[in-house]
């Protein structure tokens, strides 16, 4: 037996034990497709038969179909694994995470656009817009199609704060003015009003009288 065959047999033996290194594997697989194919496959089969015989596990049905099966497999397409499984797994996990993040962002954006108050306000404005466009001023003779050369301004696009009339009210803290001072200010205003009414109104003859509410309540008279 040549040294080359010995090396091949040792690689085959190591492969059988799950102890083959990359060189062993390369050597065995390379020789399988060469002229030693039948010899290697036969030896591989005998090694396993010897191992099974040692342990009393020899299958009693022994139809040698290897040539038939390998011939059928030869017609099958060759598997290709371009990238390692680990890298693909990481790439897959990253893709899933990115998809989830994108869905979350889109979902939040849609949720913000569906603010109930804004939706109701927008619906009211749309109804108002329809009313304007279908009124008598917008009714034209049949066949007449006016050309409106003007840029449409959508009120719906305006901010809510721009649509609702508002007045800035300066808030003054209650404790900045003592109650006595407030009461004096009101009395002064009422007196001024009384004088003004007496001069400019028909009811001015009636002087302003500060009466208690309890005195004019009918039930209590």
């Amino acid at each position: 037996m040549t040294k080359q065959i010995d090396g091949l047999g040792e690689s085959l033996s190591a492969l059988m034990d799950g102890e083959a290194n990359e060189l062993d594997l390369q050597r065995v697989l390379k020789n399988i497709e060469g002229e030693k194919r039948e010899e290697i496959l036969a030896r591989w089969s005998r090694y396993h038969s010897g191992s099974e015989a040692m342990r009393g596990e020899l299958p009693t049905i022994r139809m040698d179909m290897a040539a038939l099966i390998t011939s059928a497999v030869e017609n099958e397409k060759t598997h290709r694994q371009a990238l390692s499984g680990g890298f693909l797994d990481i790439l897959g996990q990253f893709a899933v995470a990115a998809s989830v993040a994108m869905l979350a962002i889109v979902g939040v954006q849609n949720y913000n656009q569906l603010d109930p108050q804004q939706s109701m306000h927008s619906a009211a404005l749309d109804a108002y817009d329809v009313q304007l466009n279908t009124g008598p001023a917008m009714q034209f003779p049949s066949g007449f199609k006016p050309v409106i050369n003007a840029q449409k301004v959508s009120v719906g696009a305006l901010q809510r704060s721009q649509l609702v009339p508002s007045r800035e009210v300066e808030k003054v803290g209650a404790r900045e003015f003592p109650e006595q001072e407030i009461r004096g200010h009101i009395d002064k205003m009422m007196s001024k009003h009384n004088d003004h009414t007496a001069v400019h109104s028909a009811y001015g003859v009636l002087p302003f009288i500060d009466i208690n509410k309890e005195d004019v309540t009918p039930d209590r008279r």
Partner: protein
Amino acid sequence: MKDGEDQASDKQLVVRVQKGDKRAFDLLVIKYQFKVQAIVSRFVWDRDELADVTQEAFIKAYRAIPNFRGESQFYTWLYRIAVNSAKNYVVARGRRPPESDIDAADAEQWVGSDQMRDLETPESQLFCQELEHAVRQVIADLPEDLRTAVTLREYHDLSYDEIADIMKCPTGTVRSRLFRAREVIDAEVLRVMSGK
């Protein structure tokens, strides 16, 4: 079955097949063809049917091997494919498959039904008995270092490193001793197979 070493060996070959090396699948076919036949013979009892289903099981395994992630042993995975192929075959022909399944680990030792015994020819039974006897005799006659190495390997399922520790020698020596022992056994297997 030597689970650890078989798993490691199979994994190496499966990875090669997944990378597009069909030659590695040839080794898996040779290693497992008789075991798959033993499983399939529980469902079909005709030799031609047995051959067809066995071949179909291996082709299905080859097609599905890119999806094999090594979460189970290759043999367990192949066993399931073989059982499903056999069941589908039986059902497609209007027959009833056996109600109980056998475990993958027990499949090799499974004695089988009367129908299966029909597939076992007296010659095959005699061959198995003769081979087992011859191999045990050869091992008993091996030199001490080779016998110890092969015994620790085959019967006790130890790795090369573990055997090296026990035998107080380098791992490379263990590897070499196991190969030499196998060469002696192989010569005896070849003699029995050739009927000399």
